[in-house]
């Protein structure tokens, strides 16, 4: 896809400047009846304009909680940010007041949710809900807002937008609803979009339509995109760089090509080996043994050690840092990090 190649070049150029968004050493806890669940445990990542960062992880890995914290929509309590910074254009959003954050939310950073049917209000027409963005943030009149809503629906290619602007969410198909969610996120031309599993509820053919639309609009507006997903296929299609999360930590970051070609963390390696491929019929699938950890009692040392094939005593006692990764000659690989004591063995075989 050509749009992606262009993005690569763009992000390469912009990476020199300040990134749009930087998450630094973020910690989020949930206080539950059974104890404290450490959902996010020192996460760092950044996105530049025009760049697509994919955050990959299974349920309970903390990928959605991180996103909700960035948006400022995390339920607090029970959630609590205990440490860290979220810098938007260099300003820490966690230190801002409610009014200031509200100006950023929706206008500068917008979010697309997984389930479009439950994210749209069933008793309001889609036109009204789209127009709300303009009425609330820009003080537009009802008439102006409706016109803008039609324009937006056109942009995300909903056929007969003018006739359908008064329709209700249930009158649209799943793919159409997700387009409306995208339209809503795009309405104020934000700098950054966070898409939380945007296509998980959709069929493959519709998924392809929606992902293409998203990539195209991203290139058009030169937006940053954080794509949160568990689908390794979708990630390979659109991402520039990837952060793999496990039990509230980032375990590996890498540019997309290098991660798939040569993973530097046993978890990533296991994930890649455990998915059946459409283009090749395998024998028995490799399966990562065991289950994702309970966040109330994360194993000591490396959280992945009970499921890891290569774990040593060191892994059971000491939590690995996110190491810089070097190639065989000791040259540092840009953008690559691995939180494994044995990254050398994993990467170089």
């Amino acid at each position: 896809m050509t749009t992606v190649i262009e993005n690569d070049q763009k992000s390469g150029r912009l990476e020199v400047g300040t990134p749009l968004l930087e998450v630094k050493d973020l910690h989020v806890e949930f206080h539950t009846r059974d104890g404290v669940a450490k959902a996010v445990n020192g996460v760092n990542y950044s996105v530049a304009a025009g760049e697509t960062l994919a955050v990959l992880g299974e349920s309970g890995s903390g990928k959605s909680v991180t996103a909700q914290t960035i948006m400022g929509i995390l339920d607090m309590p029970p959630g609590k940010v205990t440490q860290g910074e979220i810098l938007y254009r260099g300003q820490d959003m966690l230190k801002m007041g409610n009014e200031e954050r509200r100006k950023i939310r929706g206008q500068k950073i917008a979010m697309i949710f997984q389930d479009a049917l439950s994210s749209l209000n069933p008793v309001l027409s889609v036109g009204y809900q789209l127009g709300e963005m303009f009425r609330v943030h820009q003080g537009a009149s009802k008439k102006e807002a409706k016109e803008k809503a039609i324009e937006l629906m056109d942009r995300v290619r909903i056929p007969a937008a003018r006739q359908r602007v008064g329709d209700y969410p249930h009158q649209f198909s799943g793919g159409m609803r997700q387009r409306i969610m995208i339209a809503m996120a795009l309405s104020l031309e934000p700098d950054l979009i966070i898409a939380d599993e945007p296509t998980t509820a959709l069929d493959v053919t519709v998924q392809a339509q929606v992902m293409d639309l998203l990539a195209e609009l991203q290139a058009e507006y030169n937006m940053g995109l954080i794509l949160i997903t568990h689908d390794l296929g979708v990630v390979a299609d659109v991402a520039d760089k990837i952060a793999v999360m496990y039990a509230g930590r980032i375990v590996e970051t890498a540019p997309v090509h290098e991660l798939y070609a040569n993973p530097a963390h046993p978890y990533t390696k296991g994930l890649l080996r455990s998915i059946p491929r459409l283009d090749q019929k395998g024998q028995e699938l490799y399966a990562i043994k065991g289950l994702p950890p309970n966040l109330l009692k994360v194993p000591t040392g490396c959280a992945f050690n009970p499921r890891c094939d290569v774990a040593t005593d060191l892994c059971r006692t000491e939590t690995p840092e996110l190491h810089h990764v070097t190639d065989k000659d000791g040259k540092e690989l840009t953008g690559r990090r691995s939180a494994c004591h044995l990254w050398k063995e994993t990467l170089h075989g």
Partner: protein
Amino acid sequence: MAEPILEVKDLVKHYPLSQGILFKKQVGAVKAVDGISFDLAKGETLGIVGESGCGKSTLAKVLMNLERATSGQVLFKGEDISKLSGQALKAVRRNIQMVFQDPYTSLNPRMTVGDIIGEPYEIHPEVAPKGDRRKAVQDLLDVVGLNPEYINRYPHQFSGGQRQRIGIARGLALKPEIIICDEPVSALDVSVQAQVINLLEQLQSEFELSYMFIAHDLSIVRHISDRVGVMYLGKMVEIGTDEQIYDNATHPYTQALLSAVPVPDPTARENRERIILSGDIPSPANPPSGCRFRTRCWKAEDRCAEEIPLLAVPSVLEGPAAHESACHFAEVRESAAA
């Protein structure tokens, strides 16, 4: 092919749409399954793929006799089971079991694992006499890779993957010959999916099971299936062995479906040829005339609107690639499997 254990002939399931309050009259029908035929051999896995709304889950329900077929036959070892009732139906049902999609809602939260897996024995006491049931359930737990000591636990004490194992154990309890799996792994995490798929494969060779494996994930279907059937709007549009479907797809819908699947390999993304289908799947209450796919097909001509294409081996296909496809213009696309 070995002798089929299950034969489905021209199976139809229509849900009537009625109008009026006092005098209900039928004004139409949702044609969920509209004339489907296929065979399933012993020890074979038949994958069924298609988008939501194509009728694949309705097909499963009709095969299980949870829904009555409007017309057509389902032959289990030569006997038509679609019209059975009472004792005769009960006897046949033992042989066809189902594993459901959502392991969170398909297990009763108020029953212990032992009661859930042992419940089939209440209905079919001949399989395990009362005194042996606890032992039988513990054996099943062991077979699906769970600790037999968990017999008194409740479903909420298990993770998603473990719950799906409980669902599989329940399906195995009556020693069936056919298991219908309706999206058995789609609710699970990637790393757990592989475990469950491996378990299903291992159980198949151990107990000589036949599977009908319904899923929307084409990569998983390819991995587990011997043969694959592709459904669109209540019809089977193409059926063949996995190589025939994945490497030599001839129906435009199958080609589009395959091209849309994201491949976990970023090096492939620049040279992939994607077919992006426009529009959505039409309503099964009012399907297009002729070929049902024509409204989204790039090959459609006048003939497609008039004449319903039959599921047959197209004349252009020869040799090992020959398989059935319901398209007037069936041909293998160059580099179809991107």
